[in-house]
Structures are given as structure tokens and as C-alpha cells.
């Protein structure tokens, strides 16, 4: 908890909150590699490890927004490299459909990102996070989306 408080309540005021779903075999290992390789990247990203990008249900993304995420990232193995052969292909179809649906409803699709980061791409990982964090900053808080308010939580 403390980390995100710090992220959201430091001197400069607001900080974007990014929820990232990483596949266990490529992107999670890539993020790991970024760490051990001492690549720097913003601390705004919160990582949820899933076995495969194909495990990410559009509902997870929606729920993240509902709970206040400013941006959601789903990252998996490059097409063809999926540890489960086809998981990322399925993820690609379902999650891009979600993004299309969002944009059709007028929910800013830029809030939802996907990327392919392999276990060897530590540098790419940090680059992706830097890029989307900057974008999230420029987009500002995702206020348009009806999120949970603390009052509601209390109720």
C-alpha cells in the first residue's frame, strides 16, 4: 500500500497508476531482467503476474479501471513465442476487441495498452513503461471513467 501512496501523494501531487498484467514466461521475466540489468523505469506500474497473456480476461481490465487504474497494460510473449504456443494469439483477439469496444463507447482506448516483451527484452520493458507512464501523465487522471469512490468503499 505504502508504495502507491507515495506514488500518488508526493510533492508533485498526482501520479498515474498503471496496472500491468505480465505473462509469467516472457514479460515477467523481461521485467525481472530489467531489474537485474539495472534498467531504470517509473515506479507507477503495478505488476500482476499471470501464467499467460491469454489468461487475462477483459473483465480484469475493466475491473482495474473501475478500481481506479489510470492505465492498464497487458504484456506477453511475442507472437509465435508463447510458452503455451497460442495464448498470446487468443489474448490479442479478445483484448483488442475490448479496446475497440471501449473506443466505440467513448472510453479512451489509450488507457489500455498491450505489448510484446520477451524474457530477453529488459531494455524494451523499461522503455515501454517509460513511454506509457509519460502518456498516462499527459492524459491525466482517468476521471471520465466511473470509478469506485472511497465513500462507496465505506458504505
Amino acid at each position, binding site marked *: *500500500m505504502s508504495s*502507491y501512496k507515495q506514488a500518488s501523494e508526493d510533492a508533485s501531487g498526482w501520479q498515474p*497508476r498503471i*496496472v500491468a498484467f505480465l505473462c509469467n*514466461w516472457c514479460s515477467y521475466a523481461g521485467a525481472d531482467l530489467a531489474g537485474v540489468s539495472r534498467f531504470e523505469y517509473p515506479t507507477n506500474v*503495478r505488476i*500482476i503476474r*499471470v*501464467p*499467460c497473456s*491469454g*489468461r*487475462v*480476461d477483459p473483465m*480484469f481490465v475493466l*475491473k*482495474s*479501471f*473501475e*478500481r*481506479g*487504474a489510470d492505465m492498464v497494460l497487458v504484456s506477453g510473449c511475442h507472437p*509465435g*513465442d508463447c*510458452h*503455451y*504456443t*497460442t*495464448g498470446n494469439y*487468443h*489474448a490479442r483477439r*479478445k483484448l483488442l476487441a475490448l479496446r475497440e469496444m471501449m473506443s466505440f463507447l467513448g472510453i479512451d482506448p489509450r488507457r489500455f495498452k498491450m505489448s510484446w516483451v520477451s*524474457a*530477453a527484452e529488459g531494455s524494451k520493458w523499461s522503455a515501454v513503461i517509460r513511454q506509457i507512464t509519460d502518456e498516462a501523465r499527459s492524459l491525466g487522471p482517468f476521471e471520465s471513467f466511473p470509478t*469506485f469512490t472511497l465513500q462507496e468503499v465505506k458504505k
Partner: protein
Amino acid sequence: MNNQEVEVEEGRTLLDAARALSIEIPTLCHHRAVPPAGACRICVVEVKGGGRPGLVPACAYPAQEGLVIETDTERVLASRQMTLRLLLARCPDSEVLKELAERYNAEPLPLEQKDDKCIMCGLCVRVCREVIGPSATCFTGRGADRTVSTPYKMLSDVCIGCGACAFLCPTGAIDPAEFCTHPLEKIPNEFNCGQDFRTPIHVPFPQAVPNKPVIDKDNCIHFKTGKCGACKSICPAGAIDYDMEDETVEEKVGAIIVATGYEMIDPAVYEEYGYRRYPDVLTSMEFERMVSASGATDGRLLRPSNGKPPKSVVFLQCIGSREEKIGKPYSSKICCMYTAKHAVLYKHKVHDGQAFIFYMDIRSAGKNYEEFVRRVVKEKNVTYLRGRVAKVYPRGDKLVVRGADTLSGGQVEISAEMVVLAPAMIPSSGVRELAQTLRIGYDEHGFLSEAHPKLKPVETNTAGVFLAGACHSPKDIPDSVAQASAAAGKALGLVSHEQLTREPTIGVVNEQTCNGCFECKNVCAYGAIERKELRDRKGQLLAIVAHINEGLCQGCGACSVTCRSKSIEVQGFREDQLFAEINAVSR
């Protein structure tokens, strides 16, 4: 016999009896596959009692109750000696006879010398008539004029060219090709890249496992015409069985190791190198077979065009590798090293020969590899030229290799007597079908995909299926052996346990809510989804629902996401768990 009691079954001959006692009796006109003739008389033995006394041919004389036989009396010896002398006088060059005469010290007599090869044993005639059937050969003339021939000494069209006569002939006096209107067409020896020929019965290659001969049905006279059958009657072990059928053997196994190896791309697709158009353009494999001691030329390196050793050889690497247009983008990995080896072999065979190697880059990563290449360059002074070859074309009886030397930046033209191409390694044909059967991945070239490039280089995405060797990617022998050992180890690790231990993170179906639409089945890469019938106590079918095979499921969760009624959970990544995570990190 020779004062030893011996019993043989009814109808066996004295020769059989002798052999039962391992008494050595020479034979010329006898073969177990062919009815005896008693013609050559070399096998005579002496009947001392129990029958009409005198010399009888052991090969034809039936063993009888109470016969008393001597096999090495003066009389017998004298007879054999004279037989040998006479036959030698007839065929002075026969090795068999010389050798026998030696053994029975039949010193020559002043006899009229003939110069014949045939000793008139008649095996050829008998095997053709009694065993094979067509009676293509026969005796003509009588007495001293008797000869083996075809009826009316005409070319025979009944001869099926089986060659049994030549096979049995003790003196190599007969060759069916001489009298058969349609002698055996020759079968190229696949293992030697067609550089020599093989018989329909052949051992696929030296050190084949099992190292046993096989019958090549398509070329076997028996299977083609129903005739012949020589091998069956000649095989002393009785091992030939024509009724054997290829059979599909079904085995329940705990692990599968795929080691389907590789093939080579056909260099003929590159017109410019003139493979198949010019006989002196070989593939590296053909070169390898030719310089191999067990090859068609017994290791002598000869130009196919004129059978002379080539004074200069140009090796071209990367034929079809690292070439995207018609070839393959990847490096075949092994060519650099074996080409260097071939260059050395060539230098060993042709000392004053010149070797040139056209390469793109020398990929000599591997223990002592770089050192080896350096040695080839320095000590064997093989000329390495960096660049591609534009054209190979004939000039006179030589080949001109024109290409670029990118280091000197100029065109080079080399007049070569032999050109050796190093074609790209490609996966064995049919490997895609196999991969689909085993539900394992493969790349666009057909190389099988490992489960993970770093963490699982031997496993595949299907549990229990492992990879070894070039089916996975171009590999040299040490790499293949290493991977094979790893695969074997993995397989043993899998089957050496009482129970199969698996990651617990697999899918489970909520059978109450499953719609049975089996959309999950479509997204499962492992075929782990099975149909399960739910029945009540009376056995009434209630519903057909999905069931996940714990052995096959890898826990990717694609099914869970595809399921609209949310009836599949992935243990360890359950929805409530992820939900909690999302709640925690999003707020």
C-alpha cells in the same frame, strides 16, 4: 564313420553325417540349397561295410543304418588328388582349386592343360532349374565337349536375371548379364548418394541398428514377379520370410523423444551453381561419402566426369542458408566446420591439390573450432575467400568458378576440377505432420519449437515430448549428442517415478455451471479438454460437460477466459485471487 558312431535323420546324406561329426569333406558341386549331383567327385568317401564297397560321393549318398564309412583312406585321397589335378588341368586359374590342391597336396601331373573357368559343377544349371525355375541355363554337348550354356546358345528371355547362378558359381565362371536379354537393372545405393549400386537385399548403411539386411520390395524380383526366391532357399539361417508385412506397432509410453534429424536443400534450385548439370559439382554429402573409406570409391576422391583425382577443389558455403530469396534466412551452423574438415581431407587425398573455400562468415564458435579453422588456413594453406559465387560454368574439362572476394574487393575466377556445395540444413520432410500429431510447435521452416528458449530447451509445449538434434535447429554432432542426453535424462526423470508430479496450477471445471459448449476445447493448445457425461444415480444422462485432463493441462488459462459462464478456474490464478490483486493494486 571313421570309427565314430553318428546318427542323422532319415534322408540325410553322408556329407551331413560327416559335418555332424565335423569331419571335413571338400565339396565343389554341392550346395545345401540345391539338390545334390555327385558330379565333381571331390567329396568321395569309401564305403567299407554295410553297403556295396567302393568310393561314393558323400554329397549324394544317403546315410543308411550300419554303413561303415572311411573319409580319409589312401584310396579316397588318391581319388581326390586326381580329381583336383584333372580339374586344375582344366581350369589352371581357379583359386578354389589351387587352394584345395594345396590342402590335399595334389602335386600336378604332366596332363593336357586347358584354359577354362567352368569346372562343370553344374550348380548354375541346377539352381536355375530346381530352385529358381526358369531353366535358363543348361549343359550342351557331351563328354569332353560338355559346356554350360543356354538352350541353342541363344540369349535367354526366360532368365529373370536373379543372378543366383553367379552367386553359387565356385569359380566365378558365369555372369547372367552375358546371356540374359534383360539383366537386373542396377539400384543406386542411397547411402552413398547413388555413387555405387546395391542389391535388392541390402544393409541400409554400415552400423545400421539393427545391422541386418532388408529386402527392398520395390526392386525384389520375387515381389515383382513372384519368381526367384533364391535368398530364401540359400539362407542357411532360414531367416527370409516373404509373408512378413510392415506393421504398425502400438505402444503405451510415458515419454516421447523426437529426433527426426534433417535433410539438405536441393542445390539445383540455384541454377548458377550448375548442380546436376555438371558432374563435377557435388554436394558436401556426396563429397563426404566419396572420401569415406566405406564409400563407393573406397575413399578415393575421383572426379565423376573422368575418374581422375581433382587437382583443385572449390568449396562453396551457405548454399541456401542465410539467403532469403529462395533459401533459408538462418545459418546452417555446421557447414563452416565440415567444409574446413573436407578441405583437410582433400589435402590428405591429393597432396599437391589446391583447395578454395568461399564463405560469408566463418562461424567457428565451439570448443577448439576456431583453432581448427586457423590450422586449416595456416598449415593446410587452404585459401579462404569471403564472398558469394556468382556463377559456375564449364571450360574445357574444368569448371570455372566466378565470384566476388569482398575482402580484396575484386572479382575472382578460379578454374576448378571439382566444386563442392554446402547446402542448407532443412527439417526432415513430414515433420510438420508429426508435430501436429504430437501437438508441439514448429517454426515457419518446420524446425520444432522448444518449450522455452532458455528455461526449457529440450522440452516441448506438450508434457512428455522432448526434442533431440537437428529436428530442433541446425546442430553439429556434439550439440546433438548433448541435447539427446538431456532429452533422455528428462524422459527418464519423467518415467522413473511411481506417480506423475505436475505443477498444480491447472484448470478445473465447475461442472454445475458448465454449458458444455466446448469453446474451451478450441482454444486449448494441449487437447486437455475432454467430454464428461454427468449422470444421476439411475445412470440418466444429465449433461455433457468439459473435463480437464490433469496430465495434459499446462495451466495457461485460455479456456478460463474463453468460458462465458466463468466455469473454469486456473488453480493458483483463480479469479477471486486475481480479483483481490486487482483491487489491491488499482486503488
